[in-house]
């Protein structure tokens, strides 16, 4: 399993991604207190380091995000998305912006 620290691209919480952007999971922070179960749950749903995640859209009023992961559609709360750190694929983001 590769654990090399990638240098290319920026590393940001998933919550910062805009609609349509894709990132590769770098790490999932378990956060404070007893949130360990949530981290495990996220990983059980397929959000493990190295996984490609595409943000489809976010619900209004700071609502959950709809993401595509491992070929299916998952909704995750904002708090959860703050804990998932991804490396943004610049090319994809660049394509959208041009």
């Amino acid at each position, binding site marked *: 399993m590769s654990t090399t620290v990638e240098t290319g691209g920026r590393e940001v919480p998933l919550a910062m991604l805009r609609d349509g952007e894709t990132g590769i999971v770098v790490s999932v922070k378990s956060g404070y207190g007893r*949130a360990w*179960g949530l981290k495990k749950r996220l*990983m059980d*749903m397929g959000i493990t380091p190295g996984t490609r995640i595409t943000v489809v859209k976010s*619900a209004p009023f700071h*609502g959950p995000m709809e993401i595509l992961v491992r*070929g299916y559609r998952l909704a995750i709360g904002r708090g959860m998305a703050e804990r998932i750190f991804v490396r943004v694929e610049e090319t994809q983001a660049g394509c959208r912006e041009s």
Partner: protein
Amino acid sequence: MNGRRLVIALAGNANVGKSVIFNYLTRLHQHIGNWPGKTVEKAEGTLHFKGYTIDVVDLPGIYSLSTYSIEESISRRFIAVDKPDVVINVIDASVLERNLFFTLQLMELETPMVIALNQMDVASRKGIQIDVEKLEEILGVPVVPTIAVKGVGIFKLLEKAVEIFEGKLSAKPKPVKYGEEVEQRIERIAEAVRDSGLPYPARYVAIKLLEGDREIQEEVEKADPQAAALARRLGEELEKLHGHSCPTLITSERYQAANCIAREVQRLIPPVKPTLGEKLHNVTTHRVAGYLVMAATLLSMFLFVFAMGNFFSELLSSLLYGLKPFFEGFFGTGFIGQLLWGGVVEGLIAGATIALPYVIPFYLVLYFLEDSGYLSRIAFLMDSIMHRMGLHGKAFIPLLLGYGCNVPACLGCRIMETQRERLIAAFVTTLVPCAARTVIILGLVGRFIGIQWALVLYVLDLLIIFLLGRLAFKILPGEPTGLIMEMPDYRLPHLRTVLSQTWFRLLEFLKIAFPLIIVSTLTVKLLEALGMLSFFTSLLAPVTVGWLGLPVETGVTLLFGVLRKELALIMLTTLLGTTDLSQALTPVQMTVFTIVSMFYIPCVATIATLVMEFGWRKALVITVSEVFLALVLGGLALRILVLTGLR
């Protein structure tokens, strides 16, 4: 029968069509209840096949065999400890990778299994082709392609399961090989725990120890502290080696294995045009259109449930009351006859006319929403609002239904994931003024004081719900769970499954609610017949008269209100001897009476539902705290209103 029995368990992710397969297998021989002491539903059924009596247990839909949720713990215990003869692992062919992640864990439990590769039709519509034989070969487990909604492959599935049981078919799962470093350590730990007497396979225990599974860690700690220490030490070694936590490492590698298998067996030819389901998804989760569709759907659902409910309620009521002359002809109109009619039959009628007409359409609508996949979209849209109450989006459904009737609303709390969320949702739901309470609010305050004051009461109610929801969220133990929810592709619900789910849950409801309704009705009628009601009202007088400033007669009405809330108003008119209640009650008294009726206790049918869902203790706590709440609010309202100079 000839005693040849076997137990088959159905296991798999949520939304893969497990319940459809269950319904195909067991048809009308089902029993739906709860797992002992848990709010988790247990569906069991039997069928006869090739001389066997087969018990089928439908395990809850889960994504992993960790102990994140009660469902996962229950499923794991059942498979590992109760050891079903064969496990049928239902997997969704259109989301193969994530489903295989679960399959690989089942294989680690070393249970005899067969895989139902379901929703083959959906997969091919999405352009996914799967090489079944290759999958079979890689996993070492028989794989049967199925389309459950059409009954395709179900017979073959059963055949394979029986063949495995008879030993005619070898099902030797080829377990996942983890990376070299991990694999070495798994073997060392497995060696250490081999003789610790745990009900799980040694390799499985070793993996779960490294995965940081609390339940297993505790069990090993008790049975063999040395092995637990070894696992901790080796785990730390791995963490140093890889720079990730050990659970992350194991989960990643397992997913990696699932990914490799999926890639090897499936061919993808993505369709060019977005499917109807995708278009529907985009509209129903749109930031504007989504809410409009939701409002329209919920409104029509609400109207459907209560239009159907009212219609059948009245129909049943007139039908059943029409039986009174026959009944009296049989039992007479003496003491016994009256007691039987008033206590037993009217209790039955109350149950049949309040609960049944609403519960049936509600269940139908709920399963329709759930099975189609729309429920998860509602949760997506409403999550941020419900979050402020410590709940997530799905709780919106029961809360809304509460305005009609609290009984189906409380039943609907099952859609929440954790016990804690179910309890909070049920608690706030019972504070929502149902149709019967609306009768009191509108019939008393609305009619005699003014509709604007009735609205004020509704706002007050919302405020209290919000505050108490937050409070319950703060004080109840357990971690707050954020939303992590699959939004499955839309699909047409399988009608027969929806119908049978409705029917068997209804039976369960009847079994629990009716005895309670009848016993309480009988008790009150008996007290009335024995002339002891006035004794009770005088007992209640310090509260009703002293604290709430109401006429002494209201004690009786509040007592009867427990049976049916709208009865409280009817009785009030009888006892006070006038239908113009403004003659007998001051506006302040009306307001206080209404506030108390709004909050003081869920009706007996709701209490019965709470008992069924959460057990006696929690039902009692909710009931008592709500009585207390109602009295405090009523008393406060009286004092505030008097202070402001109203009379």
